[in-house]
């Protein structure tokens, strides 16, 4: 039995449809990351789970029982807002003990639970401090401890790292996951940052304009994204427009705009159907020598971007399109320069084929 279930849930705010017939399951102990741009409905989803909002249509189930009419205080689902919402007039310890006390536990037990939670996040030494005396990262940990101490079992995290500096986020995202997993909670963590979503969750759900675009383990969603939007949102890719020419056994020949031919895995799409090819950046090889791959073209380096542990090259291929290739941990000797002519290649299996989107490519890639 799934721990949490959404069955055709719709939520409107006036004329705006925040969630549109959304259905999914979350199993016990799972850490689900919901990824989506601002305005995609992520916070609404969390608030519906928390009981802070009521669905207009559809049912929400906890352990198989419908909870649409169950109050927020009775749902056992803790909501941790982006700005943490630490009670400014209470000390750290009082904040963390709030949950158990509210649920009727005697003070001694509540304080003990709170102390244990503070130990977990390694902030026992600041138990008597007020929230505004703590740094952003520490406040985040207190908010987490408060959620863990509540004994609720379902943790709803709204952009938990959003208020922190980029470098701090790198450190804390793994610690966050470890803590949640250690405590055995089921967690739904909402974010617009795909690196975070990939690092932290067991599974990823991609939301766009109130609808689920894809849902599954990271590896699957990354390797076989359900749509162009998902491919772009998670990992990024280069996109080429083309048309299915012929299929030969397991291989399809796609003729790309501008006179190129690409070998891709055979698809169920009809011949002459317009398609989009998506190519992951790390799957595109560049070399000064010959490449032994199914798809190889001549290319010219048009741009180089230094990203620290990797470099991104922008390469112009013979039909005039620019594609991006990411080289990880490249040595300076191997580095390519702008204007250099190279061989660009990718395997047949790495070419992802999608139906041409009804509203056009630009619309599909728009993130707001």
């Amino acid at each position: 039995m799934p721990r949490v279930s959404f069955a055709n849930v719709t939520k409107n705010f006036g004329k705006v449809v925040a969630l549109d017939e959304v259905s999914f399951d979350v199993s016990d102990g799972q850490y689900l990351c919901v990824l989506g741009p601002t305005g995609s409905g992520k916070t609404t989803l969390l608030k519906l789970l928390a009981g802070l909002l009521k669905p207009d249509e559809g049912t929400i189930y906890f352990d198989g029982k419908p909870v649409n009419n169950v109050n927020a205080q009775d749902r056992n689902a803790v909501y941790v807002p982006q700005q943490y919402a630490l009670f400014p007039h209470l000390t750290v310890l009082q904040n963390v003990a709030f949950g158990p006390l509210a649920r009727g536990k005697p003070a001694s037990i509540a304080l003990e639970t709170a102390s244990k939670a503070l130990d977990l996040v390694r902030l026992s030494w600041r138990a008597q401090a007020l929230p505004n005396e703590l740094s952003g990262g520490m406040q985040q940990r207190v908010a987490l401890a408060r959620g863990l101490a509540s004994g609720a079992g379902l943790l709803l995290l709204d952009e938990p790292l959003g208020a922190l500096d980029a470098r701090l986020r790198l450190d804390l995202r793994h610690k966050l996951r470890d803590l949640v997993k250690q405590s055995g909670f089921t967690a739904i963590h909402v974010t617009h940052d795909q690196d975070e979503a990939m690092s932290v969750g067991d599974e990823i759900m991609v939301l766009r304009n109130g609808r689920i675009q894809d849902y599954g383990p990271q590896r699957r969603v990354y390797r076989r994204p359900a749509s162009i939007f998902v491919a772009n949102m998670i990992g990024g890719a280069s996109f080429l427009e083309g048309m299915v020419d012929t299929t030969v056994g397991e291989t399809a020949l796609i003729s790309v705009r501008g006179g190129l031919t690409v070998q891709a895995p055979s698809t169920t799409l009809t011949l002459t159907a317009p398609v989009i090819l998506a190519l992951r950046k790390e799957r595109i090889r560049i070399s000064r020598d010959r490449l032994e791959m199914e798809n190889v073209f001549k290319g010219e380096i048009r741009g180089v971007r230094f990203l620290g542990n990797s470099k991104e090259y922008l390469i112009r291929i013979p039909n005039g399109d620019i594609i991006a290739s990411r080289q990880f941990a490249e040595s300076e000797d191997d580095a390519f320069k702008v204007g250099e002519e190279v061989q660009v290649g990718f395997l047949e299996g790495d070419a992802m084929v999608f139906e041409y989107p009804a509203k056009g490519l630009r619309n599909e890639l728009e993130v707001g």
Partner: protein
Amino acid sequence: MSKIYGNIHALADVSLHVEDKEYVCILGPSGCGKSTLIRCIAGINKPDSGQILIDGKSVEQTPIEDRRIGYVFQDVALFPHMSVRDNLSYGLAVRHAESTEITTVTNEMLDLMNIRDRSKAYPRELSGGAQQKVAVGRAIATGSHLFLLDEPLGALDAIVRAELRYELRKLASDLGLTVIHVTHDQEEALSIADRVVVMKSGRIVEVGKPSDIYIAPQNLFTENFVGETNLLEGEVLETNGSQCVVDIKGHRIRVSGFGKKVGQRVIVSIRPEFVPLTTPSEVGWKGVIKQVTFLGNLNRYVVEVDGGIELITEESTAEYSTGFRVGESVSVLLANDAHMLLFDYPKEGLEKEISLE
């Protein structure tokens, strides 16, 4: 060209030199003084001591409105009671420019930012990214050549940020602007800056090209801040000209390092992308995989090696290896010292030195 010698309570003895048409990123954690620095340049804050020179002239006595600097605010600050068009033309209107000039330049800006169709809209109707574009256009319309950007992409989604930063950079190049761009995001700074200025607690820690400060920074804080790295505490066993042998909890490695003494406490830094893993072999350090994370284009591993040392390592998924699993035994090959950096052990302790807040 601007020079600053400063002594401000949020800034301590800061000196900086920016060339014409340079794109400089000031990088540092929240509260390091980076915003205070550009606010001083703009004239919004006044330094307690020191000088600011723009194009060789001192600007202490010049009020904000006469410094002719384009400024983009962290919270966008578009005038809510004016349409996009009116926002864009404000800078020209207050200088009492000709109405024909105003219309021409405003239309240019609308086209440049690709928002011609939203010229009549009000700020609250626009998305975050669109608002930021209008803010940038508004500053450019005044015709200034020096630009100060205060976390211009901070309020945007990660994906929009990653796209917009390149557009920003291209705009600056095309228009020949000198830009000082403040950010807390190291990837942002590395990907678009000509030079990066790293700040901490009101001081400039290091300045250099992105590749230089990532690959060979002078400072331990910089090394840890501009990207993830493994920091290993050790002691110098031998010195030999330009190289040292360092003992790390029983493991010995050879690192290039100059002027170290035997017995000195040091920190060895090695980035995750340069920690190679293999199936167990004779050479290398023996370890066990504690954690595996799939990041799409990378696999990230946490390996525990003998001596209780935890190492983070990353490898590209481009190689079609199946990757390692949790609990698997591996060997860590740290023989190649080319990418290892040696730092003196910090006086105030490691945690304090690299602390991010």
